């Protein structure tokens, strides 16, 4: 904001707050500070389902070093993670677990679909009887990283796009609702049994009936 000198204003025309403190003082908004802190310490969840996980591990190891971008603390529990890197083939049997783990993660949470399998079925699209044709049928995906498998550089790029997205986060809700520009709806497919069992009894112990 540019201001011309005006003696009638209380600050005497000087900028309201900038330049009134000593050096080594940084001014920012709470929102920016929170977003900056968030984007520089993303905690991904250890979530390797197939061959892509090898590449994800490579990205986490010393040569590519995901830790340079603050995302090196892979957590083995969804409770402590805010990024789910779905690395590998999601089968129908796994889909309800993926959804469940996603639901267990604290907000704000982000999902990277890594590899051709998770973005759309990949090599199993036509003849794979057991592969979900894209994990976005089960959880909302923020960033797609294509490749079979994607190189670690691609995953790093995907991570930076997630960081961009975090920077756009708002503390207050936007008028349209939601906290980010392009907040995604959670898919209604869950992989859980709904209609197969009407009375709420579990058919098999691994299935959880959607409440």
């Amino acid at each position, binding site marked *: 904001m540019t201001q011309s000198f005006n003696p009638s204003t209380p600050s005497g025309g000087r900028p309201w707050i900038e330049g009134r403190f000593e050096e080594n003082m940084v001014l920012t908004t709470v929102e920016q500070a929170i977003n900056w802190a968030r984007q520089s310490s993303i905690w991904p969840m250890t979530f390797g389902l197939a061959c892509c996980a090898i590449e994800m591990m490579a990205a986490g190891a010393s040569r590519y070093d995901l830790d340079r971008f603050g995302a090196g603390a892979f957590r083995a529990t969804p409770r402590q993670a805010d990024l789910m890197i779905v690395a590998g083939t999601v089968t129908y049997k796994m889909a309800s677990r993926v959804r469940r783990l996603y639901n267990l993660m604290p907000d704000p949470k982000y999902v990277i679909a890594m590899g051709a399998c998770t973005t759309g079925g990949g090599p199993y699209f036509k003849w794979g*009887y057991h592969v979900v044709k894209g994990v976005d049928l089960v959880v909302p995906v923020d960033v797609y990283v294509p490749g079979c498998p994607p190189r670690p550089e691609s995953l790093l790029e995907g991570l930076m796009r997630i960081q961009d997205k975090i920077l756009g986060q708002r503390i207050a809700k936007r008028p349209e609702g939601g906290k980010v520009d392009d907040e995604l709806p959670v898919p*209604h497919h869950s992989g859980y049994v709904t209609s197969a069992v009407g009375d709420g009894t579990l058919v098999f112990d691994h299935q959880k009936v959607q409440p």
Partner: protein
Amino acid sequence: MTSRESNRGPGFVDLVETALPGAVTGRNLEALDPWIECPPARLAEVCRWLKTNPHVRFDALECITAVDWFEPDPKKAAKVAWQPHIELVYHLWSTSARVSLVVKVKLPRWKDDVPGSLPEAPSVAGIWRTADWHEREVYDLSGIHFTGHPDLRRILCPEDWEGYPLRRDYVMPLEYHGIRGR
């Protein structure tokens, strides 16, 4: 009778026939993997003899395979020599004599030709422990019912999966618990 050649030659199969008359219905001992064929009803008997006989003990079951010989394409039907059937292939290995043997069993694609009723073969899980999970996998993917198996459940697909995916006439599901399949 422990040298490699004698086990692959006709001599050993003659021993099987002497011990279990009529159990060997086909053989090819010149193949890279020499095989014998036996009727499904006598499979367990043959396997037990192969494991416990005093000559060459086949003490390891390497794998069980089910091959679906499906009805051929109408254009090629004139050239093929088989009727639709399923073949179970057991690869055996003798760790002491270091020889292998393949046992084959032919089954109908469906029991009594009623689609959906699984063909039956005797389980060999009581002879080789390995067979337990192998037979569950064959049951899961190719739909063979192993009679006498201790715990015949699906092993890879979810328990409520329908159909047997490695059958040639398998139709892929359109959806599974609300997730679109195609």
